């Protein structure tokens, strides 16, 4: 209802940060960006190769989560099948590199393209139906994908999988393989983040957000909107496909078991945990989803360890309960929750500052006669 609309507006990227001069705001932005880039640069210098490998897994998942967020967060279309798009990307890279001698770079482009095409096909029903129903198509796709891989074992390696040559660091870079892969992946990811951010803030993005929040808006936009949605579905799948390729760089091995329904759920969970419809949410979510089960460095997973020590099979119960709890306490995810808290704080300050004047948003104030 209206309350929900209000909060949804709040979680959309806030155009202004409260109470600061434009110059100060720019300064803060610059500092934040420098810090982010610095941390991303520093990671493979500091961490061990195994840990850098896990960070690369985070990046692979973050690609898919970024793509899914474009779909689910901003367009209101739910996909439970992004694991399959990752799989298509992964297998495209694996087959081209392992069996056809392609370079990893060229294969990445092919992976993105293949996932895009499949995404458009799967997204076609989005022309006519509401978001929830797409979940069905994508769920079925996620379940079907490993079976198709198994069936065409001549090409895919079947259940025995396919070993893929390493993505080697060029000699000139003087980097170890794990560092090289990490840096390539992280640069691509940052570029993709910027691209998605621009897309969301474009006319198309605004149309999608409006249609998510308001059915009337959706109806008035009609045909254009449907076309946008299908294309966005394709882009979303494409990002997942790139994530799949990055995943191959890290594991050097594909098999159908890696791309089952569990992966799809993991991507969805990453989006929601981080915060749907926030720019940084998917990355945060991907980080948590990868690191929590490996929680021996930040953040320490003390709780699950206590419960799960004797009953490791209960991890899904803990995980499921945590998801439900998160939806109850912070349905907009961690990043979304923080943004919402900041927004409320700002509003409270604005109300306090302006006395009884109505705060922005909500029903427009009518001047007295």
């Amino acid at each position, binding site marked *: 209802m209206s309350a*929900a609309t209000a909060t949804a507006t709040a979680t959309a990227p806030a155009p202004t940060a409260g109470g600061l001069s434009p110059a100060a705001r720019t300064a803060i932005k610059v500092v934040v960006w420098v810090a982010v880039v610095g941390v991303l640069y520093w990671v493979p210098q500091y961490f061990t190769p195994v840990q850098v490998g896990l960070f690369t897994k985070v990046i692979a998942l973050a690609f898919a989560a970024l793509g899914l967020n474009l779909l689910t967060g901003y367009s209101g279309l739910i996909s*439970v099948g992004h694991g399959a798009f990752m799989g298509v990307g992964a297998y495209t890279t694996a087959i081209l590199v392992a069996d056809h001698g392609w370079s990893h770079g060229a294969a990445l482009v092919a992976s993105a393209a293949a996932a895009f095409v499949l995404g458009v096909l799967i997204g076609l029903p989005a022309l006519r139906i509401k978001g*929830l129903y797409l979940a069905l198509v994508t769920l079925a796709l996620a379940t079907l994908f490993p079976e198709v891989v198994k069936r065409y074992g001549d090409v895919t390696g079947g259940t025995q999988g396919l070993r893929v040559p390493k993505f080697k660091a060029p000699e000139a870079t003087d980097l170890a393989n794990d560092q090289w892969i990490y840096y390539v992946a992280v640069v691509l990811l940052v570029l993709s983040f910027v691209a998605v951010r621009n897309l969301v803030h474009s006319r198309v993005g605004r149309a999608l957000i409006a249609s998510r929040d308001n059915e009337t808006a959706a109806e008035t936009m009609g045909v254009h909107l449907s076309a946008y949605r299908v294309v966005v579905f394709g882009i979303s799948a494409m990002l997942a496909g790139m994530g799949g390729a990055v995943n191959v760089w890290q594991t050097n091995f594909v098999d159908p078991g890696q791309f089952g329904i569990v992966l799809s759920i993991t991507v969805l969970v990453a989006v929601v945990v981080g915060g749907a419809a926030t720019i940084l949410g998917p990355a945060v979510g991907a980080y948590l989803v990868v690191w929590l089960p490996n929680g021996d460095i930040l953040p320490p997973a003390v709780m699950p360890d206590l419960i799960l020590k004797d009953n490791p099979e209960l991890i*899904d119960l803990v995980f499921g309960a945590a998801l439900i709890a998160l939806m109850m306490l912070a349905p907009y995810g961690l990043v979304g929750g923080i943004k919402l808290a900041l927004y409320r704080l700002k509003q409270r300050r604005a109300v306090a500052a302006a006395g009884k004047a109505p705060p922005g948003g909500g029903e427009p104030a009518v001047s007295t006669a």
Partner: protein
Amino acid sequence: MSEFLQFFFLGLGRGAIYATLAIAVVIIFRATGLLNFAQGQMAMFSTFIVWGFYDGFGLPLWPSVLLGMVVSFLMGALIERLLIRPVSDKAGHNPLPVVIVTIGLFLGFQALAPWLWGETAKPFPQLFGSGSVEIFGASIDYQTLGTLAMLAAEVLVLYLLFQRTKVGLAMRGVASNSESAALVGVPVGNMLMIGWGLSAAFGVLAGVATADVGLDSTLMLGPLIYAFAAATLGGFDSPLGAVVGGLIVGVVTELLAHYVDAIGNDLKLLPAFLLILVVLLVRPQGLFGKAQVTRV
């Protein structure tokens, strides 16, 4: 001919199972407009509850099933009240948080069942006994015939409930327009609880009809997608549609698996997937449903 008929009957048997689960999917959809991704795992869990009465307390099979339905009704109602509603109230018209909750339920039940009842599969009895009848040289087993009869009874009961009782009318009212229903005095929350409860209770029938393959936590992982395909074909809000959809999905997938090598038994899921895709693309309201799916 008799071979064709034989596989047609086998398809009916599979389809009957899909239909029982599809009915549970449809009940929640009717009551709340929601797709419950944990539907299969809830049915699995409920079947373990039936197993508890049957094996643990040594009760006869059918009373165990009925008790299982009662317990599952309460379980479904409580899930709605305690886990779904707090989230859906906050989420407004955004379905994502509730979808995530159902995924959480999926994972939770999957882990809980083997923890409570042990990791080994249980030998669950055939609900309608073993044996079969010959028809034109093909055999159809009691389990299939019994499940079909049970489905007919389910559809009749649901028809009477929704069309002939005050609660049913109120549930339909809430499903169509919960705000207006509240404004004429319908306690909307109670109706949602009843919807989840009913769905969980009918899910028991899906579980016990399937469980003669051996009861473990994977019981409904296979049927769930087919059940969704059945519900899609039937139109999401019609129990009769779910049954017809389930039977069509069952028969079509089995016949294709047997007669078309390109599909085969390992890619049975392919026709189900294509069915969902095509139905949503061409006729989103399915065979029996109302057009509400199409609101973009």
